[in-house]
């Protein structure tokens, strides 16, 4: 320990605080651990009483989430012969055969296309607007910035009705393009506000030096500001991606067969006999784990992202 300080908590205080926080963390993480655990259980282990903490892991849930299966009689099973692959063998012990792929992979791909598509658009539009708001004298600047933020206050359901009508008449309903545009608009407020904060922090002197050296404004933006803002742009992109990835209300109202993303799909996963919880958990695990990894990578910028740059620390 260094010199005595009145603001340094005592050793006992640290211990008590540490124990309480760790206890809370363990309780709060339990549902997430349970999702991942359930994804490796057999259906009967998943609904056992008392809930099973220790079990023999199986990837049945993962096979089930990617496939559809049908139940066959003994004779039919004998007629098709021995199962050929490891996943065939896995479902065969329950008297089932795989009848085809499920739509999960497709929904997951949709989530990726729409998530990445809208993130790229959001960053391109957001960086440009944020730069202009940060460096130029834009007329009505504060009003425009507030307008951009206020679009976030609207309940999605409130604008869903006309968007539904608008998309229908433009042929955008249930398409990737429509959802990419919509998610871009939803996340644009976040991207402009966050990026403006990041660009504000870059000293203006760099650009002035570049301008004096004969760069055009655009070159100065492109060659001086963008590289400096790279970290900010990257973390903003991850936030846009996560929010688009998690979005549910618009997805469930405006998409169905073609462009549906994973969040409306995962809760509808059912097995051959009732809700197949390990399959739901497997789908959820595949869907949630990437976000957990990104959250850990983002932890330094998390606060800024969730408060639209209002709190920077």
């Amino acid at each position, binding site marked *: 320990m260094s010199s005595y*300080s*009145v*603001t340094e908590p005592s050793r006992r205080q*640290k*211990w008590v*605080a540490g124990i309480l*926080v760790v206890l*809370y*963390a363990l309780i709060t993480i339990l*549902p997430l651990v349970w999702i991942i655990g*359930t994804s490796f259980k057999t259906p009967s282990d998943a609904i*056992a009483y008392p*809930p099973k903490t220790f079990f023999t892991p199986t990837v049945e849930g993962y096979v089930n989430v990617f496939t559809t299966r049908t139940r066959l009689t003994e004779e039919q099973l004998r007629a098709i012969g021995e199962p050929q692959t490891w996943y065939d063998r896995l479902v065969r012990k329950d008297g089932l055969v795989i009848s085809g792929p499920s739509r999960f992979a497709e929904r997951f791909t949709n989530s990726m296309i729409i998530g990445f598509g809208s993130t790229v658009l959001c960053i391109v539009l957001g960086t*440009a*607007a944020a730069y202009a708001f940060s460096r*130029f*004298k834009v007329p009505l600047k504060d009003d*425009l910035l507030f307008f*951009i933020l206020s679009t976030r206050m*609207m*309940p999605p*359901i*409130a*604008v*869903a*009705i*006309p968007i*539904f009508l608008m998309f229908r008449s433009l042929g955008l309903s249930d398409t990737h393009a429509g959802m990419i*545009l*919509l998610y*871009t*608009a939803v996340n*644009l407020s976040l991207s402009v506000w966050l990026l403006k904060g990041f660009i504000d922090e870059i000293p203006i002197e760099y650009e*002035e030096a570049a*301008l*004096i050296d*004969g760069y*055009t*404004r655009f070159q100065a933006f492109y060659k001086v500001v963008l590289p400096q803002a790279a970290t900010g742009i990257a973390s903003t992109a991850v936030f846009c991606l996560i929010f688009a990835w*998690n979005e*549910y*209300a618009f997805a469930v*109202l405006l998409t169905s067969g073609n462009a549906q993303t994973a*969040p*409306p799909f995962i809760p509808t996963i059912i097995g051959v006999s009732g809700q197949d919880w390990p399959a*739901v*958990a497997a789908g*959820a695990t595949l869907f*949630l784990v990437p*976000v*957990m990894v990104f*959250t*850990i990578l983002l*932890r330094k910028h*998390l*606060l800024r992202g*969730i*408060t639209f740059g209002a*709190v920077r*620390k």
Partner: protein
Amino acid sequence: MLHSPVDRVAEATPRAIAKRFRGLSDRSLAWLFVAPTIVLLLAVNIFPLIWTIRLSFTNFRVNRPNAEVEFVGLKNYISILSDKDIWLTMQATAHFLIWTLVLQVLIGFALAYLINKKFRGNDLWTTIIVLPMMLSPAVVGNFWTFLYQPQIGLFNYAVGFLTGADPSSFSMIGDVTLAPWAIIIVDTWMWTPFVMLICLAGLRSIPDSIYEAAECDRASKWRQFWTITIPLVLPFLMLAVLFRGIENFKMFDLVVQLTGGGPGSITELTSINLKREAFEKWRTGYASAYAVILFVTVFGLASIYVKALNKVKQR
């Protein structure tokens, strides 16, 4: 900006050279950069909003495109505001809003206060606590229905284990008195870290010197807490409440997946009720009026609140 060195150089440069060297003028570049964002937001937010307002004065129904659309004036608004069921959903929303805010502020602040004691490894545990907040509410909400199952659910088992009650004797999402708490618990689990992070930033922004000065003045720890810590964290706390308030007023995904508004319509929050009117009963005009009322409410409450927040900040 105007008197920066660049501007002085620019003013001194002959026009033709300036043009060649600077390409687009700052002004046109500014418009070029801002316009796409504004156009997209106008198209996807403001245009639909105006359309909603227009529809709210009609009896239009999406599922009857051929029926004649009549202008009905304020009829939709009057029937919504005099509808008892809608006031019940408003009450359900208020109950949800108030309790989630109270719990999240209390637990969030307490956690931030403890983390600020800087015990070893506090970064790691903070990151773990934050995880639920970033996940998809719909997917997680759906899985909570499994945790809430009477016999096999982990939540019921844990409650039974701690209190000695029979885990199959109660159903969090099937019971009329418990369902409102079921959604409050999950929302609090999910969003307490949000309040915690903001409070932590507030606590860390207080300079040590203030506490040192208070210590010199022999102020008790208790006194220091109420006269230094709380007032200085308050603006941050209020900001957290603003964000959570707006989000929870709009609450849809988590609750739809958890209870679907049930049992009966006990947990039918306004967004869920609105979705029912608009996309199940297809009363488009009526639902539009409903949407306008909700939007005005959020916007109005948020504006009043922001004014209060600015006053606290100025103190």
